[in-house]
């Protein structure tokens, strides 16, 4: 601790102590049901409920939303969320279920909604009582986000929404959706508007949620269909036609480049048996020590060792880059490192999982419900799932454009 905390302000230092004390007494322990590797893969209502209880208790203790003002349900502190996050990680807590709510919806609501709407929505969002999902992607609007076809038409004080959203994680549990859609067909960027939409209340009454099946055979994503859904104009964020600007707030926070730090707990091992999680090079090395290759172990193959070390170096670099991003004197362009995170992290995880095939050899053919599959078949699963994230939230090809254009200042490619 000592040195890591040296720079805490008095408020931060006090708050850190308070977090530590509370976490010591209130760690929720092991879950009664098995949890998936991340909140976006939640499918068991019992798992969700248990995680919601954890989020609520951490919220009540002031560890979540502490940098938001008191009047919107926050803690009214300054620069304390990162302290709470550090302490929750150290205490190896479970992750928080309302991940889209906190990471994307909350800052967007905070910066773009009317005050009474903030006060209505944010407390239950931060406490995890109301789950949020995100309605950005459409069949024709993948990486080209501005190509929204879902249409909202003004009808007095209401809006009538029709359209088709895809890849909406958590929609099957969500109370609310942040929705980007078109309100003017004549202008690609200035014809977009942004809403908070109460979807659970409208299920079967203008809203249909149905699961999409991933190539892994798992569900998790959904598609959401709007058929003349009517919502109040009070849930519009910012001006009509300002949707693109509002979406940039969402995306900046999604990329960790927003001004509000996202509440994040975690650190609790999920799959204790296999230890597999994308990014877990330690378990890759254990695997290499167990698996046969040629006349020795995979861990003896110098060429595989070289490959594994390459991955480990990339992982350490990711960690040290985010450390350096926190030291303004050591970065020339403030967005240079933050805008890399998604690109670099998702490709690293893909490459880690792909390397597992070479370590497992013939046994990499075995899937999750084969009793002889190494690491319970989680590596081929992790590899396939890794494409979800190299594609989502702006395919990595688009991420490279963003870096080339915004950071290096090269001409726009589109």
């Amino acid at each position, binding site marked *: 601790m000592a040195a890591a905390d040296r720079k805490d302000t008095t408020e931060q230092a006090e708050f850190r102590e308070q977090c530590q004390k509370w976490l010591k007494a209130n760690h929720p322990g092991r879950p009664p049901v098995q949890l998936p590797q991340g909140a976006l893969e939640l499918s068991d209502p019992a798992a969700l409920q248990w995680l919601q209880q954890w989020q609520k208790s951490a919220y009540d203790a002031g560890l979540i939303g502490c940098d938001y003002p008191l009047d919107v349900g926050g803690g009214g502190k300054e620069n304390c969320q990162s302290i709470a996050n550090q302490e929750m990680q150290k205490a190896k807590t479970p992750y928080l279920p309302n991940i889209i709510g906190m990471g994307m919806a909350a800052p967007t609501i905070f910066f773009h909604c009317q005050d009474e709407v903030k006060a209505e929505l944010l407390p239950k969002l931060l406490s995890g009582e109301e789950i949020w999902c995100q309605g950005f992607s459409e069949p024709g609007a993948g990486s080209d986000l501005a190509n929204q076809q879902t249409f909202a038409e003004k009808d007095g004080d209401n809006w009538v929404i029709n359209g088709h959203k895809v890849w909406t994680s958590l929609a099957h549990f969500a109370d609310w959706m942040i929705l980007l859609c078109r309100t003017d067909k004549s202008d690609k960027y200035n014809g977009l508007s942004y809403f908070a939409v109460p979807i659970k209340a409208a299920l079967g009454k203008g809203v249909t949620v149905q699961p999409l099946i991933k*190539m892994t055979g798992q569900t998790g994503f959904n598609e959401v269909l709007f058929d003349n859904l009517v919502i109040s104009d009070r849930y519009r964020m910012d001006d009509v036609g300002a949707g693109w600007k509002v979406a940039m707030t969402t995306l900046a926070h999604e990329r960790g480049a927003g001004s509000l730090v996202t509440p994040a707990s975690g650190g609790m091992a999920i799959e204790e048996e296999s230890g597999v999680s994308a990014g877990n090079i330690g378990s890759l090395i254990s695997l290499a020590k167990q698996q046969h290759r040629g006349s020795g172990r995979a861990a003896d193959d110098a060429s595989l060792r070289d490959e594994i070390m390459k991955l480990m170096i990339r992982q350490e670099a990711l960690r040290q880059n985010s450390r350096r991003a926190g030291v303004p004197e050591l970065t020339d362009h403030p967005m240079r490192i933050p805008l890399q995170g998604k690109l670099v992290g998702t490709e690293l995880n893909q490459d880690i999982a792909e390397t597992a095939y*070479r370590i497992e050899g013939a046994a990499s053919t075995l899937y*999750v419900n084969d009793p002889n599959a190494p690491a319970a078949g989680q590596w081929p699963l992790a590899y396939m799932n890794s494409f979800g994230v190299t*594609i989502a939230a702006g395919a990595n090809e688009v991420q490279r454009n963003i870096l080339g254009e915004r950071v290096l200042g090269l001409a726009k490619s589109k």
Partner: protein
Amino acid sequence: MAVEPKNFGFGEDETMLRDSARKFMSDHCSTDKLHSLVASDYQIDRDNLCLWDQGLWQQIVELGWPAVCVPEANGGIGMPLVAAVALAEEIGKAGFPSPLLGIFNSTFVLRACDSAAAHQALASIAGGKTMTLAITNAAGSWHSDHTDVEVNKDGSLTGGAYFVQDARKCEQFLVSARGDKGVGLYLVDASASGLTLIPDSIVDLTRDQAHLSFSDVAAVEVASPGKGSNAIANAIPAILCIVSADMVGAGEWLLQTTVEYAKTRIQFDHPLGFFQAVKHPLVNVMLQIDNAKSLTYHAASAFDHVPENAERSARMAKSEASDMAVFSSSRAVQFHGGIGFTWECYVHLFFKRQMHNQVMYGDAKYQRAHLANSIMGPAN
């Protein structure tokens, strides 16, 4: 000195066979049909069924494909390895679930045995019987000398064989087993008593795989202890060519399908393929497919004409084809975007087949380690 023919041995007969196979596949095995056959149940914990079109297989048997490389003396067609390679490429391009590749592999192992029993086994293939290799141990070793099956005093077999390809589609297994003088080869009937087949639960939907448990199972010796591992080693180049050809075919499907998508999918007011971030990797996929294809034909042609060069050439082919299999499948999913990540998009069928293929009989790095030993000498 023997030399390879310029055309890799693709004479008129081979080309005609390839063209008729291509037509047959496009007439009868559309990807649509394939998906509804093997992917109708998406659930991970679905029943582990062996899904294949046995009616179509009977037609294929009547077309004589299983017998193409069986010597004429044993009732086969007696064509060279390139003929099997041509068929394997079409099978791969259709992602077709069948025991054909196992039959080819068995054919080349049996051809290297040169015993009366082996000739009889070849004749049974020519007669339409299905067969596959059971020559891999629990650790998944590709070494011809490694087996977890033992030959009992009475000639029966006890132990286990693993990673047996398309096992549930086959009536006979060609099993490597250790006797007192080394590894021999044995023919075992799928219905033999004492034999248990345990289906593996695998990622690839277009294959089935199993492990076999032997408890005093009656077997016919086709290569005696000590001679079996040689026969396997002699057939390895052919086996590597066949699996490489399957990857070349599947790679071409992935390339063409992704190219078509990149022509029609509009993003940022342009078809995807306009963007060099899509175009150039697709070109790289094409380059790798061409490399793998030419190396595979070369290796098959060497096997047929200059056998002393066959192993090196085949390991080169398998190395390139395996790397290509990984790259072609990964880019196909990535460039199909969200839709490519779904079960309903057919890409995953070929993605999974490629990832299965690339590890079979040793991945790219494994082949290169062998090559380095052969070309550079062992490392000190």
